[in-house]
Structure formats: structure tokens, C-alpha cells
């Protein structure tokens, strides 16, 4: 298991590095001199030169890549060229909002998906099961940005139940939660369906296993069996799938952050790309990709821990 973990972790690092290299090469190709865009072409030549040096744009791509990784290793992600603040600080300020959004989305999907899945498993084959099945598939199919726009229009604008913008007051957790409801619904709705289906499938498997049969034989109430014993086991694979799904959630988070004018990493990258603020783009993409790869890694490792067969395939 240790070798597998190490191998997998090494691979994760390499993948992050390669995707960043792809990014740097892409940046090289994007038209427009960022120094000119950010400072204006008539800024004094010294100012522009200084700026280009700051961005590291005076160097060939290879050197930029090497330098970037060198700095990353020392924990320095560079400087935001617009505000002169550390990119690390900038990204870390925004990251909690996106993490909160992703966590709340997982919350939504668990809150709705797991009970639905259990319900469908218990009443397997009934009309209710069939309806849950169709609802699950529907929720998977709905694009997050459509849910975001419709949710905003219906619940915030028409009904006024939820705030339209922002992340709430920093000192007021309840306010922040209130601000999270709709964006996380938009991001998490698709996962309700996934979870419901997965929980149902693995519940069906688990419910036929020996110790559950034993529990039944001992006359334990069906409810206790379902929630205390079966669900506990059945839920493990869903954790794995959620880990894999974080990348997808970050994608949806960009839309939710834009539609609801929320702070967050997705919005940060979106803005930074359109302003050619490359150090921020690099730093933020590096951290989100890293985060995503980490989640996949964790999911992989959990899967491997549960099922030794996985370890042989890398």
C-alpha cells in the first residue's frame, strides 16, 4: 500500500507539473504584451521593462517554467502585478470561498442524494423507485449555469428568499450560509443524482450481504439495519466518486461565482485571464489543479485501501 501511495503521489506531482507547463506554453502564445495591456503602451520604457521582469516575461518559456517551479518549491507563487500583493495570499483569500461552496455542494448532494438512494433501494422496483431514478438522471443532466440562473431569477429576484450577490458578512456565519444556499444548489444538484444512484446500487449489494441478513435474522428493526449497518458500508464508494468529481465542481463553481458575484478561485482565475494577470493565473491554476489532483489521489487511495485489486493498475 505504501509503494502504491508513493507512486500515486509522485504521479500526482508530475501531472500537476505537466499541466502547468502546458499552461505556461499557452500563455506564451496568447496575443498581446501584458505589460502593454496593463500599463499602457506609453508608460515609460523603464516602467514596462521593470514590469516585464516582475512577470518574468523577458525570459524564454523554459526558463520561466524552471523559475516558476523553483519559486513554488520555496513556497513563493510570485506577485500579483496589479496590486503588488503576494499571489499566495490572494489565492488563499479566495480559496476558502470556493472550498465552502464545494463543501456546501457536497452537503446538498449528500443531504438529498443519500436519503433518495436509500429510499429507492428499500422500495426497489416500486413506482417511487422509478421516479427517483428519473429524477436522479435529470439532476445529472441539468447544467449548473442553467440551475444558477434560474435559481437566482426565481428564488432571489422573484421570491426574494435568498440574497442575489456576494458571500455574506465575514463575521456572520449564518449570513454566509444564507449566501451559500443557491450557488451550492447550482453546483451540487448534478451530484444529487449521482449520489442517489450510487447509494442505491451499493445499498442493494450490501443489503444482500451476510451480516445484514444476520441482523435481519436477529430481528433488528429494518430502519436500524438500513441506516446503522448497510448505509455505513454502502456510502464508501460514493466518497471516492465525490473525490473524483471535485474538478467538475470547480468548473461549475466558476459559473456560480460569476452569476452570484461571489468571491472565489474560479472567479479569480476568470478575471485574471481576461486581465492577463499571469502570475495570478499561474498561482491560482496551480493551487486548484493541485487541489484537484490531491482529491483524485485521496479518492484513489481510499479505493485502493478498500479494494486491493486496484493497486496493481497504475
Amino acid at each position: 500500500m505504501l509503494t502504491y501511495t508513493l507512486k500515486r503521489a509522485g504521479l500526482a506531482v508530475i501531472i500537476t507539473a505537466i499541466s502547468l507547463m502546458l499552461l505556461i506554453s499557452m500563455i506564451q502564445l496568447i496575443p498581446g504584451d501584458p505589460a502593454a495591456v496593463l500599463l499602457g503602451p506609453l508608460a515609460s520604457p523603464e516602467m514596462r521593462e521593470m514590469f516585464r521582469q516582475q512577470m518574468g516575461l523577458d525570459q524564454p518559456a523554459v526558463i520561466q517554467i524552471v523559475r516558476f517551479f523553483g519559486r513554488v518549491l520555496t513556497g513563493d507563487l510570485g506577485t500579483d502585478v496589479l496590486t503588488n500583493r503576494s499571489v499566495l495570499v490572494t489565492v488563499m483569500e479566495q480559496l476558502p470561498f470556493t472550498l465552502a461552496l464545494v463543501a456546501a455542494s457536497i452537503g446538498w448532494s449528500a443531504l438529498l442524494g443519500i436519503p433518495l438512494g436509500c429510499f429507492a433501494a428499500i422500495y426497489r422496483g416500486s413506482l417511487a423507485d422509478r421516479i427517483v431514478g428519473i429524477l436522479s438522471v435529470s439532476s445529472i443532466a441539468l447544467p449548473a449555469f442553467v440551475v444558477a440562473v434560474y435559481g437566482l431569477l426565481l428564488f432571489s429576484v422573484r421570491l426574494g428568499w435568498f440574497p442575489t450577490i456576494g458571500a455574506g458578512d465575514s463575521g456572520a456565519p449564518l449570513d454566509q450560509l444564507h449566501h451559500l444556499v443557491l450557488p451550492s444548489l447550482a453546483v451540487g444538484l448534478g451530484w444529487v443524482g449521482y449520489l442517489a444512484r450510487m447509494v442505491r446500487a451499493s445499498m442493494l449489494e450490501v443489503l444482500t450481504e451476510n451480516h445484514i441478513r444476520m441482523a435481519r435474522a436477529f430481528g433488528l428493526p429494518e430502519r436500524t439495519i438500513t441506516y446503522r449497518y448497510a448505509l455505513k458500508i454502502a456510502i464508501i464508494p460514493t466518497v471516492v466518486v465525490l473525490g473524483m468529481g471535485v474538478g467538475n465542481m470547480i468548473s461549475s463553481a466558476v459559473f456560480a461565482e460569476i452569476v452570484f458575484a461571489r468571491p472565489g478561485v474560479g472567479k479569480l482565475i476568470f478575471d485574471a485571464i481576461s486581465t492577463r494577470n499571469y502570475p495570478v493565473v499561474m498561482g491560482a491554476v496551480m493551487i486548484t489543479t493541485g487541489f484537484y489532483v490531491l482529491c483524485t489521489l485521496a479518492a484513489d487511495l481510499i479505493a485502493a485501501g478498500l479494494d486491493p485489486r486496484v493497486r496493481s493498475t497504475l
Partner: protein
Amino acid sequence: MSDQLFDSAREARGSGFRHSTLGRIISDPMGLLGITLVALILLGALLAGFTGYNPAKLAMRDRFLDASFAHLLGTDHLGRDLFTRALYGARIALGVAFVATGISFIGGLVLGMIAGYGPRWLDSLLLLFFDSLRSFPTVMLALALVTLTGPSLASVVLVVVLATLPGYARVVRAQTMSLKTAEFVLSARVLGARPWRILAIHILPNLIGPLVILVSMDIPVVITIEAGMSFLGLGVRPPTPSWGSILNDGYAFIRESSWPAIAGGLPIIIATLGFTFLGETLRDHLDPRLRKDA
């Protein structure tokens, strides 16, 4: 019947399921719903030119009309008939879906087979490349690429291909690898068949079926990417109607009229639901092993 939703694996493993595919799909309520919705979208795309309106013609006097017999979905901020624009939007969405998945399909097939059958170092290299591409969230990929190429339908297709191809290639690679050691392949190899011949005659036919299902299941994803990019202004060029850009107008002008938001969002929902229902049913009936989550 609902068991076919979740448990069709057992039933479908029987022989000779091909000849009654359509019948099986229609007899499944979800399949029937899927086929109906998809047919609706296809019909819409076909009939787009027959509504009597030009989707790009401005008519400022007719701005923000509510739905009526003259304008089934009302008009937008430039007085254009939204029903017509939604129908033309279907052409764009389906066009992108078919072209992009087609390219992804072929690219995934070729790269996947190379990775699966080729030398190990090439396999590792390609695998790394696929995984790196997949580690970019699609939106970021779209943003970076469109900055490079400028918004256009071609950029949308490129983003879709880059976003979906690695997944197909991985599946093809895995299948190729397992087929590589299958007896009929081994015996062909012993008989001296060249690699390309083995790939083309023995492996390829066994890959296409599952991949077709997988790709068809991604059509709603592709439609979502196209609409999402156009929603962000990274897709079609105005005045080309795309569901995403119509929805964006609807978002911008929601207080003036609800119809643009409906005309943009509803077709997206119909199309993604329709194709997903159809794809799910298809997969459950044709190849239950492909289920990602069970």
C-alpha cells in the same frame, strides 16, 4: 421495468439483444421520454428555417413582446423572434455536438489504441498527457483557449475535443489492453499478423460499440459546454443564435421580460434531459458494464 434503470445488467447480458434495441428503448418509460425529447430537438433543428422569421433581423419596435401566436416564445431585446432563434440554436448545439464528438471519437480511438497496443513508454507518455489535460477544469481550459483563438464555433469544438478526448482514449486504451491478451488476438499474433492488421480487424470492431455508447452519453455534456461557453461570451459570434447566448440575454434582461431566459434555458434542459435519458437507456440495454458509477 424500473429494474432496467438500475439492474438491467443481468437481463441484458443475454444474447441477441441487438435486434430489438429500439423496441426495448421505447418500452422503457425513460427511453421513451428520451426519444421524444430528442426527436423534438431534431425536429426543431430541421424546421428552424420555416417559422417565417429571420433569426438575425432586428425589429426594435417588437422588443420584448410576450409569447403569442405570432411569437411562440416572445421576442428578445432586439425584437427578434425567440422561437426561431431557439430552433436555430438547436442547429448550432447539435452541429457542435456531432462534429466535436466525431473528432473526439476518432481521436480517442486512434490515441487509445496506440497507447494500449504500442510500446510501454509511449503508453506512459500518452497517459500522462491525457491525465494532465483532464486535470484542467473545463472552464479554465475554455478560457485559456478562447483567449488564444478568439471566440468562434471552431474554438468551442476544440475545447470540447480537448475536454472529452482524454476520457475516450483512456477507455479505449483499457479495452485494447484487455483485448491484447485475449485468445483470438494472441492466436492472430502467433499466426504472424501485423500489429495494424490486428488492431484493425480484431480489436477495432470490439471497441467501436462501447465507445459509441460512451460518446453518445457525452452529447449532453457537449451541449452544456457549447451553451456554457456562449453564455460566457466565449462561443458563437453574434448574431448567431446559441441557447447559451440567448440565456445570457435572458439573464441580462430578466426584469424586462422572462421570455429570453425561457427561450434560452428550456431548450438546454430539453436537450440535455432528452439525450441523457436516451443515452442511459441505450447503455443499460446495450452494455451495462460501461456504467461509471455502479
